[in-house]
């Protein structure tokens, strides 16, 4: 596992890429590699992180422009090999815009930019992204456009296939059915609004994010 490399994608406007680097390398000792969004060569990495931020200034809609980058074009083949991809915040928005995950993210119900800790319920064990011995975790959120939207049919599909990853215990942004994160049917793609990379050191407020980042390289 020592050569296992996590690719951290950098878009113009990404701002959580270095936090992710710190969490993976500094807290977990996992090798990382920054990948510029114009690169389509992702053969050298074993899993991929789409970090938070404001790719392309969030112009038009969050994630709408990033989905046309060379990297996102090559992501489909990467995902089909079963390798793992996590999209956090803006990364989640990119994954829904590009169709890797169902639903969409839009303006928070109260129009506030919310920067706060959130208590979350772990819903699925599929994909082994979360520690199943815990029912609840605390992760910070920081977003203005994190209201997850899906219609009833999509919700049914998510529920029937066990694709809801996390739910807010106290819904901060008006997300449909309190959803904070979802996975794809195969379980190897996770998108979530909360920031696990900001919860990787107890002295900085918590370490409930460690398991999820560690699961980029260790999972069953």
């Amino acid at each position, binding site marked *: 596992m020592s050569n296992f490399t996590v690719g951290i994608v950098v878009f113009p406007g990404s701002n959580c890429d270095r936090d992710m680097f710190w969490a993976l390398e500094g807290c977990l000792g996992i090798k990382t590699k920054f990948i510029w969004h114009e690169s389509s060569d992702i053969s050298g990495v074993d899993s991929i992180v789409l970090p938070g931020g404001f790719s392309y200034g969030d112009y*038009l809609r969050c994630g709408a422009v990033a989905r046309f980058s060379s990297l996102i074009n090559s992501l489909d083949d990467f995902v089909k090999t079963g390798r793992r991809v996590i999209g956090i915040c803006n990364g989640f928005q990119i994954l829904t815009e590009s169709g890797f995950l169902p639903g969409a993210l*839009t303006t928070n119900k109260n129009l506030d930019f919310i920067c706060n800790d959130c208590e979350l319920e772990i819903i699925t064990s599929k994909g082994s992204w979360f520690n199943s011995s815990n029912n609840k975790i605390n992760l910070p959120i920081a977003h203005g456009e994190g209201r997850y939207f899906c219609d009833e049919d999509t919700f049914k599909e998510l529920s029937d296939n066990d694709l809801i990853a996390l739910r807010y215990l106290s819904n901060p942004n008006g997300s449909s059915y309190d959803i904070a994160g979802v996975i794809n049917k195969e379980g190897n793609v996770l998108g979530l609004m909360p920031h696990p990379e900001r919860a990787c050191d107890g002295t900085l407020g918590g370490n409930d994010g460690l398991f999820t980042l560690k699961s980029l390289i260790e999972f069953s």
Partner: protein
Amino acid sequence: MNQFEAKVSIRLRPSVLDPAGEAIKSAASKLGVEGINSLRIGKLIEVNLEAKDEKEAKEKIELLCDRLFANKVIENFDYDLKEVNE
């Protein structure tokens, strides 16, 4: 090639809450304008494009709307297209 002009309207689907629209609605009532039943904010995109005929121009605009301008999970779109002679 001919020149075409498209005005594309992007609207949130009726089932999607528009909190910014609600905020403006509340400001409208503070301005003293009564009787506003609903107020929703959308986007207007103006495109000037070249195409060999109207059919091709329409195809280009449809593709743009479908894949880029609107996210059909939460938004609807419509557009007016006309040929412009300079």
